[in-house]
């Protein structure tokens, strides 16, 4: 086997005849096989099928489907509930990114630099992620209860009666009430993600920075943050996608109500597919959701990732 003159990180699947199959290509194919096998069977095929279903009217239980062409899609374009849901999804995107990521990062930094005292904190901080959505839904329904909940009770106790609200019932604030809970649930996720990245930063860098006269602040903003760039892009992309396809907590706490105030694309799809016996239209919503998220995610992720690679060299 020759060891010399092999290009560093290139695996070229070329048409040039080669005596041996390129080792890298073989590894790539082999390593990717199980992933794509699983993905195609369980994940990707159903979404393709969902596009097919969107062309039909189907109640889900009848063996017969009625072909509709693009009627479902024209209906979707005019569906004000769908557009409302889309808007709500983007509100979640925006608020999730500006709240969950910074707080998660702050907590991660805290745990990373805080020392042994914070080991106990770390377990508590992680707890919200461990709870199932059902649990969180029930808990926060009690917290938000206008009569018995702790929020209104505390507000009244400190004399701020006027601020008490029907947190989940007022259409104007219901969405934000649920978003607060989503943040509570997912901040630990970003905390763990960033913490894992932070602990990968060698101590020598910090020592070197101090030797060069950097303060804690400059160390963080000029050394740590740039090193975390990749993690931040990953986190932002995950948050984006997660927020756009979000379903769980909204469903448990408000079912998309009251009066579609907290409706999301995924809850709307679920209602149409499983409650209204309108599987075809539900498939249309699902397909539209897929397109929206895919386009958004790809336009955000790849450009950012490429810049990152350019910078990292």
């Amino acid at each position, binding site marked *: 086997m020759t060891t010399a003159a092999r290009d560093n990180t290139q695996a*070229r699947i070329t048409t040039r005849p080669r005596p041996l199959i390129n080792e890298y290509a073989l*590894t790539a194919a082999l390593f990717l096989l199980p992933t794509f096998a699983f993905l195609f069977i369980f*994940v990707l095929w159903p*979404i393709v099928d969902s596009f097919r279903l969107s062309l039909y009217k189907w109640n889900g239980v009848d063996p017969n489907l009625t072909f509709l062409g693009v009627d479902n899609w024209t209906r979707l374009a005019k569906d004000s509930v769908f557009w409302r849901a889309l808007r709500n999804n983007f509100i979640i995107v925006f608020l999730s990114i500006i709240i969950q990521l910074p707080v998660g990062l702050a907590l991660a930094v805290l745990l990373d630099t805080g020392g042994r005292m914070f080991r106990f*904190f770390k377990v508590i901080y992680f707890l919200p992620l461990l709870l199932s959505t059902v649990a969180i839904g029930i808990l926060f329904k009690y917290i938000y209860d206008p009569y018995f909940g702790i929020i209104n009770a505390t507000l009244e106790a400190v004399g701020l009666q006027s601020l008490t609200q029907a947190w989940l019932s007022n259409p104007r604030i219901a969405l934000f009430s649920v978003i607060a809970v989503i943040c509570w649930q997912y901040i630990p996720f970003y905390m763990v993600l960033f913490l*894992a990245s932070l602990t990968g930063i060698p101590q020598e860098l910090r020592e070197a920075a101090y030797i060069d006269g950097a303060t804690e602040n400059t160390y963080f903003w000029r050394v740590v943050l740039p090193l975390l760039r990749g993690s931040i892009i990953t986190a932002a992309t995950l948050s984006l996608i997660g927020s756009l396809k979000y379903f769980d907590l909204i469903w448990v706490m408000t079912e998309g109500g009251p009066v579609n105030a907290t409706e999301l694309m995924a809850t709307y799809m679920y209602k149409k597919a499983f409650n209204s016996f309108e599987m075809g239209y539900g498939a249309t919503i699902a397909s539209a959701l897929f397109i929206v998220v*895919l386009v958004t995610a790809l336009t955000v992720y790849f450009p950012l990732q490429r810049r990152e690679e350019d910078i990292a060299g």
Partner: protein
Amino acid sequence: MKTKITAKSVVIFVLAVLWLLIAFVPFWFMLLTGFKQSLELMTRPVWALPENPIITNFSNVLANRFFRFLTNSTIVVSVSIFLVVLISSMAAYVFARIRFRLNQPLFALIIAGLIVPIHVTLIPIYLLTTRAGIYDTLSALIGPYVAFSLPISIFILTQFMRQIPYELEDAARIDGCGPMGSFFRIILPLSRSGLVTIAIFNAVSLWNEFVFAFVLTSSPSTRTLPLAIWDFQGQYSADIPQIMAVLILSALPLIIAYVIFQEQLVKGIMAGAIKG
């Protein structure tokens, strides 16, 4: 290293404690309620301490097939995590380290996999499961669980692996190491923090996974923990303290596992850092 008590550190400490409370208060409510009777929850202030604490909620749960559910959950989640870590690390290695023409389009497919809402897949997967004759068995769950955990795991691991310095691999290549060797000897050990991270995330979400568990199983002996609350929920009512007991007992194994494994997380980093 002396810790100076500055105004800034006080503020930070206060904020840290504040978040501690915010994170913990709902748990406090869960614990509180688990020791109450339904009657007490309904009639006395919801946030009051239990007047007559009872443990029957917990004993009811434990007596009622809880250990069966626990076993099922443990089996399914362990097998799934093992497969996910193995398969996703292999795929992430390719995306992070092997440059080839299809790299980006295939990675886009991974992202697409992240996006698919699971309800869309219910009927096809149900069909698949019944035709394969594995309906109402634990193995039915493993396929979807692994498949839906792969995209996010690959996504995160790819990013972790990208951060490993190329020089290490170059050195290994000069010594005659091919891509496989590089993977097993260098990348994998150095990615330990990433591997543990995705193991934790997936364990948590699969432990609480509900939708596939209820669609693909029916008999109580194949059920997993999240379905245990059904025994305490009726058509028009729910025994909330009882449900709280179930949820606490369901979360406990996870909490214990996390406490044990987060030590691993730290140790793994240390090993990697020293080697680097």
